[in-house]
Each structure stands twice: as structure tokens, then as C-alpha cells.
């Protein structure tokens, strides 16, 4: 058993940090995501700069322009970038699982068209998954795609979609067969966002202004050549793409960045001398380190070729959990001043999203109970 980074990876981290300092202003705290065009151009610039260094899709196979870099390198990228506010912007999704899904299930035309653009940092995607009546029960989705000649005609509504304002393509889940079991009638369409018949409605919210939208498809015609994988096999495509995402977001590092700021504030106000606050800080720090070791454990399992397992659910719960612990401490320490935008003290408003999106806390707990503890399903 070894718990330290090997020297090559440690050196790589130093290079990434240097790159970050060269490409972002000191004290960078994230893009002003309210300004969609600025977000698109600034994050695109960073992603392209990474692509030029060969770092954007380095974990991809060599045949698709990557260098087969290890999951450990991806973990370093996630730790260094996610923790400071993800300067790659929404393109991190392309790299992590949209590209890999196209590699696995795409036609030669889809691969040659999309993968080059993704690996140059030149394209933005959004996800069309959830619907008003299909959230945790995603398989019950109803957005319909019907054959008409060489096209699908798409009708339905997607909700909670992020990054719609800047997206060039939508990774869309549709129902192509309404008869039969719900998991078996789903297909994936790679939809150009300029297609007529797609309406975007922004949903005002207090977590991140540009994060939530409705996507309304009203008879949009999407060529059948945009389908990824076989018709009615979309559920498998998505499950594999998400399950095989080798490395998730390094929430522990994000939480530790926040914790550092909380401590700085506590030092400024003198609250650091309060022994209760010292206890809370230590517990929060330990929670982040717990999330770290569980995250690394999953990377280790994947690197050794193990198939996806509930260890990923365990890791995710721990990661989103430590974000919460730190946000709640910030809530105590920052006080009223921290309610102001940009103070760094209002994470408590935003942290709730991580235990809701991409598989709620309850879904993670179910998976652990059923597949790790082998507890019986209640029928």
C-alpha cells in the first residue's frame, strides 16, 4: 500500500499549476457566468490553450488524439481545475464522458466530426436529460422522437439544463419506442443547437444564474444520422458513458479551497482563537481528507481495470458530503458579511446542487445499500 504521489505525477501537478498561473489572473475565482458570451470566450480560450499543450484530452486513446494518460493525471487535472472554479468551463464534460461515449458508440462520421472539435477545445455541449416528470426516474423520460423519412421529429421538454446559452450541440435522450419496458425505448441524439424547433427558456435561480434552463422541442427535425448507437439502446449508452467516467469531480479539493478561505476569514476576525471553531475546522478538514482517500481509491480501482462499482457511489457521497460540511462551517464563520455576492461566504446557497444533480444523495445511498451491502429491494 502506498499513499503518496509518484514523482512524475507530482512534477506534472507542478506544471499544471504553472500553466494555471500563466493563463489565469492571480486570485481568479471563476468566470462571471452571468455574461454568457464572456464565459464562452474566456473558458474557450483556456480550453484551447490546454489543447495546444496536449492536455485537454490527454486521457483519450492515442488514436483519437490523446496520449492514454493515466487516471491519476486526470485526477490531478480535476483537483487543480475543479477546485478553483473549473477554468475549462462546460467543456470539461466533453472530455470526461461525451467524447468517450462517441468513441465507443459513434459512427466513423460522428467520430471524425465531433472528436476533433472536442479535443481542440472548440465546441460546447449541453445535456438534455431530465424532464419535468423524469428526474431521479430518468428512464421514465417522455421526450419523443418519431421517424419521418431520414429524420427524427423531436417533441418534448427538457429541464434543468445548464450551459444552454453557449451550447453548439445537445446530448439528448429521447424516447423512440413508447411501448415496452421504459429502459428499452430510449435513444441518444447528438443535436445541433441551431436546429429549428428548439426553444430555450431560462429559469431564474439563486444558485448560479445561467445554470438552469428549459429546452422545448417542438417538432424539431434531427437527422437519423445524429443518433449515437443503436435505436432503443440509448439507456445502455448513457449508463456506460457515465459509469466509465474514470474520474469524477474532485470535490474534496474544492472544499479545501473553501476551507482555506474560511480559516483566513476566521484569522482576520479573531474567531480562530475560539476553541469550538478550531474543533469544527479540524472536523471539516478531516471530512475533506476522507473524501480524498475515497476518491483516490476509485481512481486506483479503475486504473487496475476493475469495472465500475459502488465504490464510486461511496466516493461521491463523501465528496458532496465534505462540500456541505465546509459550506456549513462557512455559514457559521462568515456571518452576515458572507451573505454578499463574491465574499466567498455564501457557498451554503450553492452546495445543495451537488447532492441533487448527477444522481441524488438518495440514489447514491440506494446503490450502496443494494449493490455494496446486498440488502434486499423492497418490492
Amino acid at each position: 500500500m502506498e499513499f503518496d504521489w509518484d514523482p512524475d505525477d507530482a512534477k506534472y501537478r507542478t506544471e499544471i499549476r504553472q500553466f494555471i498561473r500563466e493563463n489565469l489572473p492571480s486570485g481568479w475565482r471563476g468566470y462571471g457566468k452571468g455574461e454568457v458570451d464572456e464565459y464562452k470566450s474566456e473558458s474557450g480560450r483556456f480550453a484551447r490553450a490546454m489543447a495546444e499543450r496536449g492536455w485537454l484530452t490527454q486521457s483519450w486513446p492515442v488514436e483519437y488524439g490523446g496520449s492514454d494518460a493515466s487516471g491519476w493525471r486526470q485526477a490531478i487535472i480535476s483537483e487543480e481545475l475543479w477546485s478553483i472554479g473549473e477554468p475549462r468551463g462546460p467543456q470539461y464534460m466533453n472530455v470526461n464522458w461525451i467524447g468517450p461515449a462517441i468513441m465507443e458508440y459513434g459512427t466513423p462520421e460522428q467520430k471524425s466530426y465531433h472528436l476533433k472539435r472536442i479535443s481542440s477545445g472548440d465546441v460546447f455541449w449541453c445535456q438534455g436529460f431530465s424532464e419535468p416528470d423524469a428526474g431521479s426516474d430518468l428512464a421514465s423520460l417522455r421526450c419523443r422522437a418519431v421517424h419521418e423519412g431520414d429524420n427524427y421529429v423531436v417533441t418534448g421538454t427538457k429541464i434543468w439544463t445548464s450551459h444552454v446559452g453557449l451550447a453548439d450541440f445537445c446530448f439528448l435522450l429521447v424516447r423512440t419506442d413508447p411501448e415496452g419496458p421504459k429502459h428499452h425505448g430510449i435513444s441518444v441524439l447528438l443535436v445541433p443547437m441551431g436546429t429549428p424547433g428548439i426553444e430555450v427558456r431560462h429559469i431564474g435561480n439563486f444558485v448560479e444564474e445561467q445554470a438552469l434552463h428549459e429546452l422545448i422541442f417542438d417538432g424539431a427535425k434531427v437527422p437519423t444520422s445524429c443518433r449515437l448507437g443503436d435505436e432503443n439502446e440509448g439507456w445502455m449508452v448513457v449508463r456506460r458513458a457515465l459509469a466509465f467516467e474514470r474520474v469524477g469531480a474532485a470535490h474534496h479539493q474544492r472544499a479545501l479551497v473553501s476551507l482555506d478561505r474560511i480559516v483566513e476569514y476566521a484569522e482576520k476576525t479573531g474567531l480562530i482563537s475560539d476553541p469550538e471553531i478550531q474543533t469544527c475546522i479540524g472536523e471539516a478538514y478531516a471530512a475533506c481528507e476522507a473524501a480524498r482517500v475515497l476518491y483516490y481509491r476509485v481512481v486506483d480501482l479503475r486504473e487496475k481495470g476493475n469495472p465500475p462499482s459502488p465504490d464510486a457511489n461511496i466516493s461521491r457521497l463523501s465528496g458532496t458530503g465534505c462540500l456541505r460540511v465546509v459550506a456549513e462551517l462557512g455559514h457559521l464563520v462568515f456571518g452576515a458579511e458572507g451573505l454578499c455576492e463574491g465574499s466567498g461566504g455564501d457557498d451554503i446557497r450553492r452546495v445543495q446542487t451537488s447532492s441533487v444533480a448527477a444522481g441524488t444523495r438518495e440514489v447514491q445511498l440506494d446503490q450502496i445499500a443494494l449493490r455494496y451491502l446486498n440488502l434486499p429491494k423492497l418490492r
Partner: protein
Amino acid sequence: MDFAPDDQQRQISDAVERLLADRESYKVAIKLVERDAYDEELHQELVGLGFFGIALGEGFGAVDAAIMVERIGYGGGLVSAGASALVYPMVVGDSTTETVALATGDGILPFRFARNASIVLALQDSDVIRLPLTPELVEPVANGRVGYPLGRLKPDALAQGDRLGSDSADKMRRWWRVSLASEIAGAARGALDRTVRYVQEREQFNRPIGSFQAVQHQLANLTVQVEATRWLAYRAAFRGAAPLDAAVAACYATTTSPNVYRESHQFHGAMGFTREYPLHVWTMRLLVLQRELGGCIAHAREATRQRYMSERPRSPVAAV
């Protein structure tokens, strides 16, 4: 980075687990703890297999010892594994096959194995006193005949001990933390596994109680905590009980294992309160381990001190 145990570590883990399972050490523990007694036979078996020499043994190390300590905790063995096989050698610089007990201050606060050990290490503020223990130096403590046998030193007992010297206190504190985290990892895992098995078997309302989602979610939460406890303990051992890592491991173990205690007993109902049913072998030990060396508050504050309040420049978490 490599989370997989190497062959040697797997052998140690399997051998210890098998030894305790074959002997049904947790059942032996139930009988012994009622008399404040110690599993001498298990102790001698472990000595015979060389396990008490692992921490300092050629080609072995602290991680191997931590694995052994965790597995002994998991198997419910009533032996002073952490103190004898991990803390003592790392503090003193020499292995022992004796039964060691660990105390703080003058040994007046109740501590584990006081009546069974032949050596006590007493942690003072800036020194460690080593004292050969005999029964007349120890007062028994009644603690419900569960968990661990406890005792306390009589006043001035330590006057007869040796002082180990200046850096021994720091070493003892750190390695005691690693040992605690490892013991808690084993005991918590034992309690959790026992509870999972129980809720799979126990039926009410025509179904296993483990099929109810509320039960499942609690146990899933505990699984996350128990897993992280174990890895943090091993990491701290790997890092030579570095002050921050040791404090973090002990803090996390002592902060989260109360949940294991509470929910294990909650899901067992009255059956879990009996002496005959073995749950107390793991859960009641958690209570003792959680209070040792100042408990979660002391470990948490030490983690904060090490990470945020020490003199050296703080290493940044991020690039900007």
C-alpha cells in the same frame, strides 16, 4: 499511489482474520470481559506467529502492523494489539511480546487493560513514563463488564517508572492516534457487518427489516464513514504517523464512529442489549476508544493546529 495490499499485507490480513475466526475470538471476548480478564491464549498465538514484531521487523512496517491491529479489532480479539504491537515499538524503538497498556497523566483516569498488562506507558505533557505493572499498583474499575477491562493506577504508582526522554511524548501521541484509528476502523467495521447481516435476516411485517429504505440509507451512510476511517488509518501509518495525518485519522474515526454505535444498536433492537448477543463486543469498545487521548475534540483541534496554526508557511491547496 496504490491502495491494494501487497502479498505480504494480504497474508497478514488473511492470517489474522482466519486465526480470530477459527477461535471465535469475539465469543471468547464475551466470556473474558465479564471477569475483567484477557485473551492470553490469543496473545500468545499472535506472539508465536511473529505479529508483535511486525512494526519494526525487517521487511515489514507500520502499515502491516496497522492492518493487523484493524483485523484484530474486526475479529473482536480481546488483546492489547495496538498498544503492544504498534505504539510501544514505535515509541520505545524496540519490540515487545508483553501486554502493554497506555495511560495519560498519572494514570488516574481509567485506561484499558490496566489489570492485565505487564507494562504501562504513561503519556505526560512532555515525557513518557514506562512502568512495569503489577496488580498492587492498579485499582479495578467497574464498567458494566463490556467493552474492555479497565483500571486505574494508584496514586504515586508512576514514581517507580522510567522516563523515556524528550521526543517520546510526541511520538506516543502520534502513534497512539494511528493505533486508535486502526482499532476503531476494525471495531466499526465489525459492528456494521454484524448489523447488515442482522437486518438481512430479521423479518418483521413479512419482510427483512433491511428492505426498508430508511434502514438501508443509514447503513449506506455508515459504510462511507467506515471505509474512509480505514483508509485514513492506513495512510497515517504509511506516513509514519506524521502529526497532521495522525490527527486527521483519529479525528475522523472518533467523529464518525459514534454513528456506527448508535445505528448498530438502533437496528438490533433489544437483542443488541444482551450479553449473549455479540454486538457489544464491537460497539462497547467503540465507546472506550472514542474517549481515549482526549477524544474527537482533542484530535480535531490538533488537526487544525497542525494544518493552520503552526509556524511554517501554509502550503496552498490551489494554484491561484
